[in-house]
């Protein structure tokens, strides 16, 4: 039977550290960005935000080993499915309600709501394109 060795244990420990660092960068950058915006420093806030984003991707792509294992990817897939299901429900019910209240002159749907609904439509359009592309490659 095979035995674990120090290098594999270190690799897993490094993976955990890098993951914490990645998400820590994003969390700190978002918090600092919001704080700087609050203190009327929007440009500096945006710069800090982008430093966090770049650090996140820098760590992700800069490390030699994989930072996520197959269960992480399976969980991501399932979470994406749930998200799309919720988005679909919101779009179907929301768009129909918006059309109805407008047609019946009950309520004028604010541009922000219509914009959000078009955003959902765009999301599903991207999903359709991605699905078709992946199907053509498999």
């Amino acid at each position: 039977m095979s035995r674990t060795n120090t290098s594999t244990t270190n690799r897993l420990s490094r993976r955990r550290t890098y993951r914490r660092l990645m998400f820590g960068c994003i969390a700190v950058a978002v918090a600092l960005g919001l704080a700087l915006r609050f203190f009327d420093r929007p440009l500096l806030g945006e710069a800090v935000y982008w430093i966090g984003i770049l650090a996140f991707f820098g760590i992700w792509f800069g490390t030699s080993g994989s930072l996520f294992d197959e269960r992480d990817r399976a969980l991501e897939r399932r979470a994406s499915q749930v998200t799309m299901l919720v988005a679909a429900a919101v779009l179907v019910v929301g768009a129909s309600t918006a059309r109805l209240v407008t047609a019946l002159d009950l309520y004028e749907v604010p541009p922000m709501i219509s914009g959000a609904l078009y955003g959902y439509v765009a999301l599903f359009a991207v999903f359709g394109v991605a699905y078709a592309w992946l199907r053509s490659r498999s």
Partner: protein
Amino acid sequence: MNNDLRERRDRAGLSQADLAAAVDVTRQTINAIERERYDPSLELAFKLAAFFECRIEDLFHPAFDGETD
């Protein structure tokens, strides 16, 4: 999918972290497999079988309809 990963790991005197390190996944993944909440990929199943020097079907037992999962 039923499996006897925990029994084999216990017999080998390994912790979940040890086994995770050996097959290059997280400890949580080993825990989820042992609790039968996650079915491993074919690649990971092969790795686990190779680690315990047995066949995949000795380690994993699919629960078909009518059987308990």
